């Protein structure tokens, strides 16, 4: 299994809106904790260490300027 980095969501705008909405009303600290829980839930859903490492790599390299 390898990480999908091609568009994979039928309703990208909707998913993005859900994500932002989920953080509404949270303090910065609460948002960080929320994100941490979310990442762990998604990591489990991915279910594969190597794929998750590819995701970590992609997240890291995209942030480099």
């Amino acid at each position, binding site marked *: 299994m390898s990480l999908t980095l091609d568009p994979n969501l039928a309703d990208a705008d909707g998913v993005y809106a859900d994500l932002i909405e989920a953080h509404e009303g949270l303090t910065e600290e609460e948002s*960080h904790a929320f994100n941490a829980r979310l*990442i*762990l839930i998604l990591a489990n859903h991915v279910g594969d260490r190597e794929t998750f490492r590819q995701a970590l790599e992609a997240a890291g390299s995209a942030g480099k300027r």
Partner: protein
Amino acid sequence: MLDDRYSLAFRLYPYGRCADQDAIDPVRHPVVVVGGGPVGIAAALDLGLQGIPVLLLDDHEGVGQGSRAICFAKRTLEICDRWGTGAPMLEKGVVWNLGKVFHADRKVFEFNLLPEEGHKFPAFVNLPQPYFERFLVERVREAQAQGAPIEIRGKNRLDAVEAREDHVLLDVTTPEGPYRIAADWLIGCDGASSPLRRMLGLDFEGRVFQDSFLIADIRMKAEFPTERWFWFEPPFKSSGASCLLHKQPDDVWRVDFQIGWDVDRAEEMKEENIRARLDAMLGAEVDYEIVWSSIYTFQCRRMKNFRHGRVLFAGDAAHQVSPFGARGANSGIQDVDNLGWKLGLVLRGKAPETLLDTYSSERCHGADENILNSTRSTDFITPKSAVSRLFRNAVLDLAEHHAFARPFVNSGRLSLPCIYDGGLLNGADALPGGPSRTRPGAPCPDAPLGGGQLLERLGGFVILTLDADAPEAVEEDGVTARRLALSAADDPSGALAARYLGDARSAVYLVRPDQHVAARWETFDEGAIRAALRHACGKERPA
């Protein structure tokens, strides 16, 4: 001169003058063991039971006070059973299976170790270290009475060593003055601060963790169940970053408070201050007596090499881990299990000295696994950064509601025996469909055999056959492997077949004296067995 560094729980080997002290030239011994802790006594026992004369030197006259190590794992009990002392340990020890994990004032979840059926020993027993040591010494006494050439000299402190090419000279101090002996082989089991290691100027590198633990053994008639209770960020006043409550025999409970690095040790050790912590945890109405207490810090580190010429190191002298996971004493016993038969073969001239280098490589592999696991536990329990704490708490929050998060919760990964994957002594893995857990390098899992247990019948080199033909014994270059002929039908529960056959119809295993698998095939092939036996004795390097 020779003052005790600690008080004794059991005075088991009082000083007595020996002939070596009056000898003009240093008397030479095949094996000298330094240090009378669990690992040293075990080493003497293993060698003595092989008929190898072994002398153990300890600077005290018995077993030190304090429970210290309390969790002894199944593999340790199996090894001790091979030495003939598993039964009293199991009888005295407290068996537990249930653990509860708390975060502050909330219970996050509970777990059951759910021990696999068909094993003689449970996953763990809780047994204070002094009892563990006493049972080993009692077994030494019994073996001596049956002729095992073991000698223990109390109040004999090693003060200097001189390593020669084929022996080591030892300067020993006693209450009646010094004397000198020589040893063909010296085994250092003298603990984490090993004076022997220092005398030889050897490295001991690794990661120091800045944290201290206040340990208290308390005796109380309380209604707490026989479970392991672990708190992350415990809610009781000034109880530190984590806390552990664990049952020992005789109504004694172990309490560990992780109290941080920046503490005044003398102040914390005052009884009134220990009581203040305990009262906050247990409730002021609970009546208890403090049996023993101590503050300790730990490090995760190991020597680069456990063999230095004629000197071998085992146990804490060679490697240290955090207490999370009970990987200290348990790994030390596995060291002895690995070293004993190899040194025995070398001493009898049946294997090259280089076999002992595989003691170092295999047990360094084990130590690295233990250090990795205990470092991960430490990092989970005491997060080293804000983001690490964020994820740790996220895991604990999720674990309360969702099963998926519970495997992330790390309050110590409990000690399992190491599999020597890639080990230099491993031979063929030629059993298509064979279970992964019994691949070459793995310790043999126990299984029921009608009347007895499999592990009780594995000793020395064994050709274990399951529904396969083989001769009763094969001798190769002075080393004999005897056959243990079994059939899947010997175990109606099916455990034997599941653990050793898997999808295969028949199997032939070559098992080492430490009950690790050396090689396996579907059927017997004399040439293959002979080659694997030579290889397992270090006689041929892998291609």
